């Protein structure tokens, strides 16, 4: 069922925003193929008339009152940031200028 290729793993890594070395791609291609072969058996019993379950306890529409409550201060929110500019998170360029 599964034929995972190195190109596929490289694409998945791009989608997941993780740079991978060529060695990591080779290893993951092997691992993923093996894992997917083992877990593909779920489709053996998953018939069309079986409903899907996403959550163990059925809970719907958990709301709270729309009131302001104490939350983190700006200093607290920025305390773990790798970089900041004044009261804001500083991020690298969004657009590539190349």
């Amino acid at each position, binding site marked *: 069922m599964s034929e995972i290729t190195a190109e596929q793993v490289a694409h998945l890594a791009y989608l997941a925003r993780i740079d991978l070395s060529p060695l990591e791609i080779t290893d993951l291609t092997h691992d993923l193929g093996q*894992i997917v072969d083992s877990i593909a058996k779920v*489709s053996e019993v998953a018939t069309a008339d079986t409903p899907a379950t996403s959550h*163990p306890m059925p809970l719907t529409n958990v709301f709270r009152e729309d009131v302001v409550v104490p939350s983190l201060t700006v200093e607290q929110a920025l305390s773990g940031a790798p970089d900041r500019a004044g009261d804001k998170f500083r991020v690298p360029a969004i657009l590539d*200028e190349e």
Partner: protein
Amino acid sequence: MTYLTKLSAAALSELLVSKQVSAVEATRAHLDHIAAVDTDLHAFLHVAADAALNTAAAIDARRVAGESLHPLAGVPIAIKDVLATQDMPTTAGSKILEGWVPPYDATVVARLRAAGLIPLGKTNMDEFAMGSSTEHSAYGVTRNPWDRDRIPGGSGGGSAAAVASFQAPLALGSDTGGSIRQPAAVTGSVGVKPTYGGVSRYGAIALASSLDQVGPVSRTVYDAALLHDVIGGHDPLDSTSLTDSWPSMAAAAQAGLKDGALKGVRVGVIKELSGDGFQAGVTQRFTETLALLVAAGAEITEVSAPNFEYAVAAYYLILPAEASSNLARFDSVRFGIRVNPASGSLTSEHVMSATREAGFGAEVKRRIILGTYALSAGYYDAYYGSAQKVRTLIQRDFAAAFSQVDVLVSPSAPTTAFKFGEKLADPMAMYINDVTTIPANLAGVPGMSIPIGLAPEDGLPVGLQIMAPAKADARLYTVGAAIEQLLEARWGHTMLSQAPALTPTEMFASEEGAV
């Protein structure tokens, strides 16, 4: 008088309440023991010695002033590093969060502080709780106190090893597929995964949100119940938190100590969680425990859960899918490390990719890539969609079983503690190890592991898993305490009193802290 570190939380609490022992003395005894043994075992990633002693002194002052305190006030506790603590680093065992000190406490941490427990530090774990051996921690392995060459289980190997080696009477863990119960089993300690939603997850770094649950780690069933009562109950900050009111788990555990507590209790043995693949000594101790239950008046029935066979497969689709989404928050902007790429332009996208390359370990990358695959167009229905259907079938298996019996039992893990490196090269071998514990997470039902003896072939601890219907956590404590009492009466000692003595240096160190 025995050493303070050897006491259960309940026994220590009595000495604290009657002022025979101060919280500072109790805390110092544990810190001394940590200093003596943990360089070798490495259960802790961070020890907050000064803060713990200051907190203890404040508790003593309040107690001396006659303030009414929670019975556990002054009892030390270790906290799994997956839980946010505003005065201690919180890394979830990952380099990507190295040095991060959260600006807030997890609700469970806030609750134990409010009850006056003394946080000793943060315990080691597989990175982002992905693993069954603690070998996937970015900060090195934790050793099993029973055999230093073997794993302490995972992901919560640090919390289990800490209580099993008497570095703390209590610890907090988290259980997504067995991360509390399996470490308990292989270290001879007690661990409970509460009903999904029974304990707040606010401030618990998310792995798989439909599976994760926080719970107690201890050396006795009663101690776990006392801690469960502290951390459990509705939390408006967690939208998946159940609004039910809960009975006292401590009272439920005490009910299990009464004569005849097991009489007429219907116990189901899950056919699919036995036999092939289970170590001989594990099966032997499990069978002996069933005989003990029968002698105590319990009714044993074999029940079948045919879809459990597909649980591991479903789990390793659902978990990576949810994890790949949850871990997207590690984007090098708001917290954690930032690493610039060696070449190319410094755009957000490139910096994020380089940061995640450097910050995540091999298992985390493996599961994120697997989850991304399972959710991708063209594969979603076959994999993730099918896994969600299997989840329904497993819930139906549980419902059918619980229509016949009060609790279900199985060995907590197929084997005793394995050696470091034994399963590292083969991810599926590691994943299959969770076969006994995963079904409870998929269905949201509570589960407990208690020690039931040593496997004759290797002298290592074996655990019994007990499961109850959703929201019937109290039943686990009653049955668990009853079995624990029967076994200890037969052995003439507790399980952990049989653990190998640690080094002479540690004996001396803990004497210094004793009364």
